[in-house]
């Protein structure tokens, strides 16, 4: 019996591995293709449908083209400010609310949950948001990007569920010893919540890193624009080069530049993700179990 079971398990494992392997290929192939394109000289762009790249034909001209742009470092800095600044505000707002709503003895907890659900289900829309931001004179500052998204209800609920799963006995013991709620949060709950903090932090960080639409709406100064907006402007400049003849444009192919722009924006996240992956799965699953 156990032999049959192990055989089944073996087959299951094999099928699962093959399936996951195929999925990996499906995910990695487009990325690999984009990378190859980004390092292929114009002359060989047509042949870049091949999946392997000849090292002799490599070029990093596309990356150099972006990085030599006078605004690249400024835009990169702006993206970092938006990402880290936004992340700090996000966690500062999300953690206390998630913790408060995870405490079952909180007076009016059900009512608060309902109130919180309203903006989650019914979005006010673009125009009212624009009016609020402009009414508060937040235009042309990073606050216009950060404050409207200071808290994501979805992320807050995931975090609340994770906090709620932390054994009540631990919290009770601390309270019996005279600990206040802040002490419980910072000394008991948060040290046990690293997976969810990293998971939710990654959600927020990725969102901020990719900010494109709101900067276009609210940041009129080029000095404040983040990396995605700059990359878009450079690429749009390539599309207009049929109308002007100034020495402003690319010396490499448009396809390679587009591919390089994708890689440049992905790179920081790709570097961070492997380090927190083990927490990521644990955090998102644990937080998502309870409704």
């Amino acid at each position: 019996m156990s032999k049959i079971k192990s055989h089944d398990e073996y087959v299951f494992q094999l099928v699962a591995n093959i399936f996951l392997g195929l999925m990996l290929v499906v995910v990695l192939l487009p990325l690999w293709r984009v990378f190859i394109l980004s390092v292929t000289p114009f002359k060989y762009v047509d042949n870049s449908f091949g999946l392997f790249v000849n090292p002799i034909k490599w070029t990093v001209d596309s990356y150099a083209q972006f990085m030599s742009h006078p605004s690249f470092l400024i835009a990169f800095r702006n993206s970092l400010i938006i990402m880290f600044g936004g992340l700090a505000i996000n966690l500062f707002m999300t953690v206390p609310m998630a913790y408060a709503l995870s405490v079952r003895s909180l007076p009016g907890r059900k009512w608060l949950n309902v109130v919180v659900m309203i903006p989650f289900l019914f979005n006010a829309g673009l125009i009212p948001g624009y009016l609020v931001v402009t009414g508060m004179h937040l235009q042309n500052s990073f606050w216009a990007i950060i404050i409207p998204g200071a808290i994501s209800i979805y992320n807050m609920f995931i975090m609340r569920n994770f906090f709620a799963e932390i054994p009540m006995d631990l919290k009770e013991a601390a309270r019996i010893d005279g600990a206040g709620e802040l002490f419980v949060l910072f000394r008991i709950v948060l040290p046990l919540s690293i997976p969810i903090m990293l998971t939710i932090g990654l959600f927020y960080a990725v969102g901020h890193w990719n900010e494109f639409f709101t900067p276009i709406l609210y940041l009129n100064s080029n000095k404040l624009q983040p990396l995605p907006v700059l990359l878009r402007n450079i690429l749009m400049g390539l599309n207009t080069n049929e109308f002007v003849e100034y020495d402003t444009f690319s010396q490499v192919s448009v396809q390679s530049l587009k591919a390089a722009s994708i890689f440049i924006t992905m790179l920081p996240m790709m570097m961070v993700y492997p380090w927190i992956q083990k927490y990521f799965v644990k955090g998102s699953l644990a937080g998502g179990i309870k409704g």
Partner: protein
Amino acid sequence: MRKSIITASIASTLLIAVAFGGYAQAKPVDLDLWLLQAVTEAGPPPDDWVGYKIIREKLGINLKLTLQPSSFTDQDTKISVAAASNTLPDIFGVNRDLLIKIAKQGLVAPVDSLLPMMPKRTETHYSDPMRNKLVMVNKKMYGLPDPGAMDRVEGLVIRKDWLDKLGLKVPTTIDELYAVARAFTTKDPDGNGKDDTYGFGAYYESSNLATAGFGRRFDYIMGAYGVAGTWNFESADKFQFNVRNPGFRKAVEFIRKINEEKLIDPSWSAPNKDEFRARWKQGKFGIWWEQFAALATQANYKDFDNNFPKGEIIPILPPKGPEGKSANGLDTANARIYAVSAKAMKSGKGPAIAKLLEWMASDEGYYLCGFGVEGVNFNKDAKGYINLQGIDPAKAYSTKAMQPLTQLRNMVYINNDIELAVRYPTYKSANGKTMDPLGIWRFFKNSPYTQAIGSSLVDPPSNVNDFTRYYNENLVKFALGQQALNDKTWAAYIKGLDSLGAKDIEKTAKAKLLDAELLE
């Protein structure tokens, strides 16, 4: 008496001095301008740009520039949001469809009253009645239509070195063009011993009702059958969709034939401009339709030049069809439109806006916004033509670093000889041949084009996406051989268009064009 006269004179002089002094020191008008930037990657003029100082001191205007997003879609979004929240800037660049929409909502002001305040600008920028019609709502101008891109910039080109190698003449009819395409496909015109070339190259680029069908890259084929463009503008009696014209089906049959016989690069059915341009630069095909600057300016030609130092591309007249018709493309009206918000006009900023625009049309404004500071960024000869003699190369107006200084140039350019000469200079190719992009443009400009100016005025129907999708996809299926092409299937196709409201669209469009006096 004399004393009192002197006293009165002094008093009145003081009064006048105070009055004029007060005028000169009056608080400058704040103008918020959302600019359609000339070079999207370059950024705005620096804070110490001399133009700000001149505009403030001479015109009494505090100009605040905001560069609009680089893509049309993002521009529309930004303006739509500002319009919906009634926070439009004083003056802003906007596309025609959105302008008409917000004009009808009363968010932008008619600008007819500003024209007499800027006579020079009106003469140089707003004197083309056809262009002005683009911004008319109920006979009033709701926008300032600056001259847009140059006209007739695209046309048919051919690899002359391939013609020479195969001993062929420049084709003049659609049948001759077909024969040349066959030779380019089968006779190894590049001499590399490989069967790797095609006669025709193109890509499918239809995007809206005005360019419905296969898109503009096939205009020279459609033109040979008298059906270039979506509409038949020959006369009011004949006004209808071109697909109803028997010549249209013949053109589709021609494209189907060259596709079946593999005389056209098979990548044509993919809407990829970059790929298309990469492929002619790599010598994949010998006959195609291209924009003159995308073809021949140094930055764009260099890849082809590097790959084929002995290669030569020449413009040719579009081929004549069975009835002797031909067209390289469509004559359409285009403009870069600026609108004045109703809010700005109500608050009395109209005269300041007119003053700014009039200054931009003056010599001072024109050269400063268009080329920078004379003696620093450029020099000019007695006729006003630009040169860089004696200019520090690092500060030349044409360098990458100086582009922010001329971000307003599209508000002053009028496509005159001064601009064209510097925008499209001649140069030597690798084989020592003089390349003259403007010469190619002039060739296109003098070639046959189909009049379709009214196409810019036809408002799209509410189901425009469904309509153009059906219109385009079926044509591509016919051409690719994925759908039989005979009397029955063609009639079914036309019937399908009618079921999507083709006749109503024709009727509405005709009424509008008659009203605009664009049909006779």
